[in-house]
């Protein structure tokens, strides 16, 4: 059954159909503009352009500024969510302080509210703070994700209490117990969380679109839209595919090098979120 030809045929068909658009994107980034819409399609560039489409993409719009902003956005989200998520998750899992359940419920309730619902009031809040169209407004509101607290609480609950108690008897301060005992043991879970938060932050579209008007503050996802408009009366599909390829590379690299954490992180986010 395993090597049954029908199974192979379905697998091959699925793989070809689903991979084809990605192949089209990457190969088109190296094609001449005229051959991108050639019928029948050129599977490989006939008129290989080298990096010319990437240079054109940078001429049309500040694609490297967008790229840098996307990195800034993703890294702040990852660092803040992972560190404070682990800290809060550890606090919720291992300390019995008054109000614990209520506070955890409050954090949990924010997971259930989709961002689309928050965008209007959050924008007004940013305006009141004077943060619209600034890095503060772009970066701060989403940089901590309640899912991080939720996930880390589950993993922190499995840490052996005896280990923490032993350190406490040795006179270790609580912060050091967290940093030197809990954090290293949570490392595999932190890696999965970091990858999932990176993917979310890298793909973020709605908030950066709403809060920023200044081109210099745009992230890549939002900046990409500028390539769908004709430039000097000409469609710029080559540049659009080059910029799209640039925007996909960081996630592809994560997938290739950290495949185990990648799949684990995405699955955990879906199943436990």
């Amino acid at each position, binding site marked *: 059954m395993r090597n049954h030809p029908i199974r192979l045929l379905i*697998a091959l068909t*699925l793989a070809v159909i689903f991979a084809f658009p990605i192949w089209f994107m990457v190969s088109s980034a190296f094609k001449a503009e005229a051959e991108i819409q050639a019928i029948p399609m050129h599977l490989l560039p006939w008129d290989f352009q080298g990096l010319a489409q990437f240079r054109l993409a940078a001429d049309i719009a500040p694609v490297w500024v967008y790229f840098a902003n996307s990195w800034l956005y993703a890294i702040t989200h990852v660092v803040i969510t992972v560190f404070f998520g682990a800290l809060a998750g550890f*606090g919720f899992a291992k300390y019995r302080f008054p109000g614990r359940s209520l506070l955890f419920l409050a954090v949990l309730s924010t997971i259930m509210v989709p961002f689309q619902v928050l965008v209007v009031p959050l924008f007004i809040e940013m305006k009141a703070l004077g943060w619209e169209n600034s890095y503060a407004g772009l970066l701060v509101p*989403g940089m901590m994700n309640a899912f991080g607290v939720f996930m880390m609480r589950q993993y922190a609950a499995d840490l052996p209490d005896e280990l923490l108690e032993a350190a406490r008897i040795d006179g270790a301060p609580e912060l050091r117990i967290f940093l030197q005992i809990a954090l290293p043991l949570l490392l595999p879970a932190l890696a999965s969380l970091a990858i999932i938060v990176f993917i979310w932050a890298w793909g973020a579209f709605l908030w950066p679109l709403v809060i920023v008007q200044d081109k210099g503050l745009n992230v890549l996802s939002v900046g990409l839209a500028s390539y769908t408009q004709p430039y000097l009366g000409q469609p710029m599909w080559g540049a659009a595919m080059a910029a799209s390829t640039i925007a996909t590379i960081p996630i592809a690299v994560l997938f290739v090098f950290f495949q185990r954490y990648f799949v684990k992180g995405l699955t955990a986010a879906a199943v436990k979120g």
Partner: protein
Amino acid sequence: MHYKWWGLIFVLPAVGFFAAFNLFPMLFGLYLSFTDYDLLNPPIWVGLDNFVNLWDDRLFRQALGNTLVFVAGATVPVWGLSLLAALVFDQAFRARDWLKAAFFLPVLPPIAVVAVLWRVLLHPNGVITSLTGGWWGVTEIRWLADTALAPFSMIAVHDWAMIPFFMMIWLAGLAAIPPEFREAAAIDGAGPVRTFWHVDLPQLRSTAVLVAALSSIGAFQTFALQYVLPNDAGGPANSTMVLALLVLKYGFQYFRMGDAAAISVVMFAMIMLVTLGQLWFNRRA
């Protein structure tokens, strides 16, 4: 100080953050939905007027209908095809890992890239037209400019991006089934169809509910495809106008913050219903 208070100190940064940037805007949004507010003058309390007016608002009704069509198209086929893919890729066979990785590729590009890429692919005289209509001599299909076709193009693109993701969820569910179950079925002489029907499927119940819930919750919030793919966001002629897009239009184009907040509340209520349905199904299992 007793050490338990350190727990409170550890959770306070996160709790404070969520209070400021999640809980406060949640409540503020709910308040706004009962007001008229244009960002310039102070909000005026209007009670339930915004919600009543929405019901008579043709654009809202259209967006609601479009969203429901999109949700239907983004759940049923996704559910079936991602399960099929998971069953195909669940067992080892020649070249499986390569084919599975190729199939998984659509998960990688961010949604904005998906939209830009498909805008190029769905050019009226483009690659997808030649691969589909080409067989029948059709050389032009207005995938994104035809009001009857555009909503289904959105669904097709969305499903392409989501099916490999949900395959991964099904695979996790399949991996959790003890192999002895299948071995026992094989010893009893059950074929692959009967094994799937009587052994796998009952074990996959919570995964099945999860995929249905996640795919519909995601689809209710759809936004980026409808914003980037058509020539004008939500177009042509509002045929791809969905609720999240209407929130943006009313809020940031017309400065009708009260109406935008009311639509957000409606969206939230619908997503809440899905979540409750999920809990109900899981409890019955």
